[in-house]
């Protein structure tokens, strides 16, 4: 059948469990992956850098969405967890000579452990109170970075060599793109499957009504800690990839602003949506870049021009949120629904 099915008709469990339900969607995904594989061969370093930034941000945004979008726990400590991942990789790599393939998961694990410790108060505090608790963690983290010079390099930070795997160095934007692509695909697949499991469903149950979730037998405390752990694991991987990408990290790479940017990504993309994390990361990274490319052709005062760019970016966010308060993911869903029934859409 080449047409789009009007309903979901499945005759076995495997087709029911499939992530992509039709050949049409599968073809698009394959085509997109082929495009991504070809991209480093045809794009310049600027486009590849922006693509790498998007990839890294997607992983971070998924982590943020697991905690905030799916479990309903608001955190301002995401930048700190990203920082922990970055510093773990940098310290392991430079001081202990640990190779990339160990330093990367180690960064995720250390971040996850930190996240679970910080998540302990989440049973008692939630909403704005949890926000303040995680904000406090961000401040402590920054203080620690500045004052633990033997470990973190203090204000000067740490220089880190590019990632190498099986003798291949990922120092150029193009080579790093492939490494990043693999990590993004793995992150997406894990997250997509997570919400088809008991644990993932428990996250959603807690978000919707934690008391009800407890009544149906979900261990709220344990589940919240797992959410913190998983979210921080993603953040750790994000930080590690960032450190290996820029080759030098210092405290100013992980300001509070970074956490706010990730919150913006998941709100714009769609809370509680994996594809929303992807859309949000793309939107927040790409729109300002597109605006600066256009701006480079305009000959007016650079200060005014940059302010205008920021205003346009802000207006675009407002417009998108007015058009679809549930984020770009919902907008995407509506567009798909429209074309599914086209030309008989209503």
């Amino acid at each position: 059948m080449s047409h789009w099915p009007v309903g979901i008709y499945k005759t076995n469990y495997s087709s029911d469990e499939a992530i992509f339900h039709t050949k049409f969607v599968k073809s698009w995904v394959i085509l997109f992956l082929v495009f991504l594989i070809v991209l480093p061969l045809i794009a310049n370093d600027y486009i590849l850098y922006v693509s790498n930034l998007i990839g890294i941000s997607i992983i971070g945004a998924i982590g943020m969405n697991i905690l905030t979008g799916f479990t309903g726990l608001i955190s301002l400590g995401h930048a700190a967890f990203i920082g922990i991942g970055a510093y773990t990789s940098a310290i392991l790599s430079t001081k202990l000579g640990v190779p990339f393939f160990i330093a990367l998961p180690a960064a995720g694990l250390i971040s996850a452990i930190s996240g679970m410790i910080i998540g302990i108060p989440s049973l008692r505090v939630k909403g704005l109170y949890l926000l303040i608790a995680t904000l406090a963690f961000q401040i402590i983290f920054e203080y620690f970075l500045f004052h633990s010079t033997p470990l973190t390099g203090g204000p000067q930070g740490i220089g880190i060599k590019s990632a190498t795997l099986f003798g291949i160095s990922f120092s150029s934007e193009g080579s790093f793109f492939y490494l990043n692509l693999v990590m993004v695909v793995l992150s997406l697949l894990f997250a997509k499957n997570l919400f088809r499991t008991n644990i993932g469903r428990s996250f959603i149950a807690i978000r919707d009504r934690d008391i009800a979730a407890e009544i149906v037998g979900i261990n709220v405390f344990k589940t919240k800690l797992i959410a913190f752990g998983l979210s921080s694991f993603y953040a750790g991987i994000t930080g590690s990839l960032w450190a290996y990408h820029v080759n030098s990290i210092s405290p100013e790479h992980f300001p509070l602003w970074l956490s706010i940017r990730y919150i913006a990504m998941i709100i714009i993309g769609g809370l509680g949506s994996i594809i929303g994390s992807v859309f949000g990361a793309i939107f927040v990274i790409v729109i300002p870049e597109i605006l600066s490319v256009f701006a480079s052709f305009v000959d007016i005062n650079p200060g005014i021009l940059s302010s205008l760019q920021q205003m346009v970016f802000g207006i675009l966010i407002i417009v998108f949120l007015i058009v679809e308060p549930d984020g770009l993911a919902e907008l995407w869903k509506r567009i798909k629904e429209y074309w599914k029934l086209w030309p008989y859409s209503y």
Partner: protein
Amino acid sequence: MDEKIRSMVTRREFMKTTTVIAGGLAVGAPGILRNAFAQDSGGGTIKALALCPLTRAITWFGEAVAQGTGDYFKMINEQGGIKGKKLELEVADSQYLVDVGIAQFRRVMAKDPKPQIIFSGETGLTKAITRIIEEEFPGQVVYLGLSQSVELWAPKKHPYNFVMGPTYPDEARACFRWIKELGAKKVVVVRSDGAWGLDPMEAIREAAPKLGINIIEEVVAKVGEVDVTSQVLRIKKLNPDCVFLHGYLHETPARIVKTMAEYGMSAKKTPIVLTSWSTNKKFIDSAGEAGEGVYGINHVHYWWEQDRPGIKQMVDFNQKHYPNVDYRIVDYIRAWLCAIVAVEGLKRANVLTGEGIKSAIESIIDMETGGLSPKLNLKEHKLTEYTTLYQVKGKRLVPIKDVYGGPI
């Protein structure tokens, strides 16, 4: 009607068409974008990039860098350019974010011709870009950084980087030499709690004992701290001979100076010495009467010192092109000085490559700037080790003398 639509385009045809178009666009988009970047501004120009924060944070600094470098380039272009070539400055907004700054750098470097000189001023961004320059554009680009962080000053490690000023340790040593001349033995250091505030501390701890000065305590106050009473009470209790402040813009020092005056420690009674980023007109305006007698340093002279030919030239240019402008902040003058170095490097370069410009800039020794700054010596990849000492008198910063900030 439905039949008509169906006969016009079938679902299969539609899907095929959209797939082909979207696939084509997806594959072709980078090529289209790449062509958009490959805009040639001609072989008759020398390109430079000012990568500075124009939105989000410290925008006044970014705007001053863009304006100051741009104006000096404009003046040189009016005089015929350099070796028959016009100077072209592209300005990009780093938003004071490392990732955004790298993206902007990448965007400009993807164009052809590439800039050969980069003006910037953020420590974290400088480190990230330095790595890219050294690995991907060796011998093609020279980086003139307005950050005075000592970690960026490493001529052997980062051969294409030049620090556009004395480093923070140089500034601190110059201040402490003056503190010694004042006869102070017990000094309280007030600093911000971050990379900036910590930058010269190692040098201070090393230099002070050699000068016979005892740092009795380091008092920490955050940048922009509103209530500094607890810090001032601590200073009062310690009863120092002199107070040295570093790691601030004008607001915090102004508050500290005012609060100190309220607690009976006026600058005339207890000397107060500021480093360069606090020594400006905004400090004088904010501190008011309490600011009288405060010492400060800077490696450029101020807008009102128009008896100096270098400053006069800048003021004349502004009066000619911007008749409504009657004052420029000191950061504009710093940027103007940066552009002086770039232009001198371009003039001296045998070949207009990054390598040629770098060697030419390194050859700048004892260069006069018409009194706009102390003599420039760029052999060691920083502007100078001298700074001018100022004192606030009659709500003006009045120069006293140039002070050496090199090792003790």
